[in-house]
């Protein structure tokens, strides 16, 4: 693999026009990745999902070279028609369209970064891989006091032109004071057996609000890793919603750093798995200042021989007095072969805090099914009703009514 990485890297650099600074950073990133390789179960964070093995088993030999010169056509049928929105369309890791037609153009600054964040995280070599092979990184800056009028939908599309390829993509958002944005990520995969590595960086200024809804529905055999890093300044709020169901393997990772007082982070997630899928959500909220809040609610419905994993960590620094941290994960196992693993973790160094976590897993309640059936529902409907009710709690947490309606329609929960 090492040789392949090196030759693909040289090919990638020579076919692109990166600045010297970028090339230098990319080389360091490559060295970092070469040193550590793909994470395996030996690392605590990857204990339940050994991505090294998963790639080896499902993809085999990976190609790292991705030609960003190819012009891809966009099938506009996939656009959401129910709501007016701005668009970013990404095809095979390349930004094909940036469209902010509903916004004031002088309030948004679009740039590409050439001095990207190194993220040299010791147990996350995938960030290095991303830094190394991602194309030009777009940076979207919202100026002070500007709120997006319409939501931004990021369409992440892959087409049949790629297979057995590692696709890396990175996007940066900077929200200045009092700005706000709603983002919906929708993935549409028409490719098979790729390893996709997405990285989103959010920097929230004072009083900024970020709402990010990630929807992953279309069945495909890709392996995905999705990493969001959110840095909070004073009084800023982030709301993340994850619906993960389509791909064979996904690990969604959300890292929130609450650095300013009164800042809060909300993370809600759903795993709806069938057949032979393996999905993981990992959240890490770091309370680094007084009076910060975080909430996580993760629910899994697991059928057939699928596997759902939740790893959640709440870290409270000794400075972060008056922290509120609340975490709950629940799982319904519908089949003998289904599996649920959880590691809800608390690491606390301050005494005046309220932190709790709960985790429960089990089967559907027989009494509830009996109750519904005795009122005339057949067993299938009764089960569906209970599962819908179970998941609806998470969807109801979405604070934007318009988007909540859209998502309910899309995933068929009413």
């Amino acid at each position, binding site marked *: 693999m090492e040789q392949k990485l090196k030759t693909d890297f040289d090919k990638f650099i020579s076919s692109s026009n990166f600045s010297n600074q970028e090339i230098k950073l990319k080389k360091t990133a490559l060295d970092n990745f070469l040193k550590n390789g793909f994470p395996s179960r030996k690392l605590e964070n990857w204990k339940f999902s050994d991505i090294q093995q998963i790639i080896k088993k499902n993809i085999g030999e990976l190609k790292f070279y991705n030609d960003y010169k190819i012009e891809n056509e966009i099938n506009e049928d996939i656009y959401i028609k129910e709501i007016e929105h701005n668009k970013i369309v990404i095809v095979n890791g390349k930004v094909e369209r940036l469209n902010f037609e509903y916004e004031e153009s002088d309030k948004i600054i679009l740039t590409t970064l050439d001095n990207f964040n190194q993220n040299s995280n010791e147990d996350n070599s995938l960030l290095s891989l991303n830094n190394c092979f991602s194309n030009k990184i777009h940076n979207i800056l919202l100026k002070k006091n500007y709120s997006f009028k319409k939501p931004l939908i990021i369409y992440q599309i892959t087409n049949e032109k790629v297979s057995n390829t590692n696709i890396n993509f990175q996007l940066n958002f900077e929200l200045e004071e009092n700005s706000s944005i709603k983002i919906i990520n929708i993935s549409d995969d028409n490719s098979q057996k790729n390893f996709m590595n997405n990285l989103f960086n959010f920097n929230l200024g004072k009083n900024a609000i970020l709402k990010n809804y990630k929807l992953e529905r279309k069945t495909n055999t890709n392996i995905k890793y999705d990493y969001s890093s959110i840095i909070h300044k004073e009084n800023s709020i982030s709301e993340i919603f994850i619906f993960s169901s389509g791909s064979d393997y996904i690990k969604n990772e959300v890292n929130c750093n609450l650095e300013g007082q009164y800042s809060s982070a909300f993370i809600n997630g759903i795993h709806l798995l069938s057949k032979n899928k393996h999905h993981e959500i990992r959240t890490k909220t770091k309370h680094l200042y007084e009076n910060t809040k975080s909430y996580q609610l993760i629910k899994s419905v697991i059928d057939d021989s699928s596997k759902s994993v939740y790893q959640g960590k709440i870290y409270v620094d000794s400075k972060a007095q008056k922290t509120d941290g609340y975490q709950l994960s629940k799982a319904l196992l519908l089949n003998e072969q289904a*599996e649920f*693993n959880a590691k*809800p973790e608390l*690491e606390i160094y*301050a005494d005046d805090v*309220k932190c709790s976590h*709960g*985790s429960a897993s*089990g089967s559907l309640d027989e009494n509830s099914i009996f109750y519904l059936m005795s009122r005339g529902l057949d067993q299938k409907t009764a089960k569906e009703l209970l599962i819908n009710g179970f998941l609806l709690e998470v969807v109801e947490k979405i604070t934007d009514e318009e988007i909540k309606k859209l998502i309910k329609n899309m995933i068929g929960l009413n």
Partner: protein
Amino acid sequence: MRDKQIENLKDYKYGFSTDIESFKAPKGLNEEVIRFISNIKKEPDWLLQWRLKAFERLKVLKEPNWQKPKYPKIDYQDLYYYSAPKSFKEKPKNLEDLDPKLLETYKKLGIPLQEQKRLNGIAVDAVFDSVSVATTFKDTLTEKGIIFCSISEAIQKHPDLVKKYLGSVIPITDHFFATLNSAVFTDGSFVYIPPNVKCPMELSTYFRINASDTGQFERTLIIADKGSYVSYLEGCTAPMRDENQLHAANVELIALDDAEIKYSTVQNWYPGDKDGKGGIYNFVTKRGLCKGKNSKISWTQVETGSAITWKYPSCILKGDNSIGEFYSIAITNNHQKADTGTKMIHLGKNTKSKIISKGISAGKSDMTYRGLVDISKNASNSTNYTQCDSLLMGNKCGAHTIPYIKNKNSNSNIAHEATTSKISEDQLHYCQQRGLNQEEAVGLIVNGFCKEVLQQLPMEFAVEAQKLVGISLEGSVG
């Protein structure tokens, strides 16, 4: 007896040191030391081979490093692996010679003077007294067919039982410290309860006649045969001052059909001084196997001592309908560190487990609950309930909860809850208003917090544990 041993030593062809005062095997960990230990204990050949096999395995094992409390590297070649009872010359002659702090603690625990003396081996008559007491107990036990002796004695007298069960729960291929213990263990307790016998009294190392210095590598083996019941108390309620830095004991419990074992520990080893100097590294492996149907193993622990506590009393629920329980209070103060919890491994059908863990950290200490609940595919209709609560006192300490939850069976239920909080001002104010001073108030509130676990301890133990909780937290408020 000792002379004879020394004689043996002299004859020993490798010419080990025969200093009477210390009476130790030469420093270091190697095959010769293991042969020396085995030889001096007159062990049968199979056990020597067993030890050597463990030692072979040890050579390829690495020390685990995933735990929260980090400790300075231990030089295993710089330790004594065998140390016979020290001569009385070294022991304090009377109570006045003792550390006044130790005496103060005794006083608070309410341990009678006679016992204080015995605990320190001061007054010979006291020792004799208790020996006779112990013998009376022994008669009652022998009548019922209960075997309760040191493991060295068991190896000589009941080799079949030992051979059958030793290492059946903690194999020699286990982790580093367990394997180290298998290679070099010196002594420990052995209990066998015959079928359908309910042990009439709480067994404890306290009552064992030859409970001489058990050293740093204890090995305890408890077997409850079909339909039997035993409650075993480990440790001492009074502080045990151990000079050893490393304490790596192995405890194996085996419960056959319908048997029940209740194992209670009050661990109060030397925690080091206020600045975190000294103290014991308590790296203990405790594991129980519910081998038969309807068997039950229940662990109760009160952990207040040791500089570093690193242990996870576990239950392997192999028999159908078996039950595993774990009740724990862990208190850390000053610079103490504890990483403790349990593992409940559900293999049989209709197995149940319950975990109640209470952690209290004060001063500059760090306290981690780490646990595993694993319900395997075949363990249908199993349930687990876990509750772990932490209490923090001050903002220089840490409290962490790291549970691993694995559910592979859709008919099984797992529920886990954890909270972290501090003693509220309101509660303190209320108690103080009614005339308690601050420390008493804290003691009262903490005892309430721990109540669920304290209730599980045998009567006499519970009272002392309650006091111990108060003492451990002394000076942590204000």
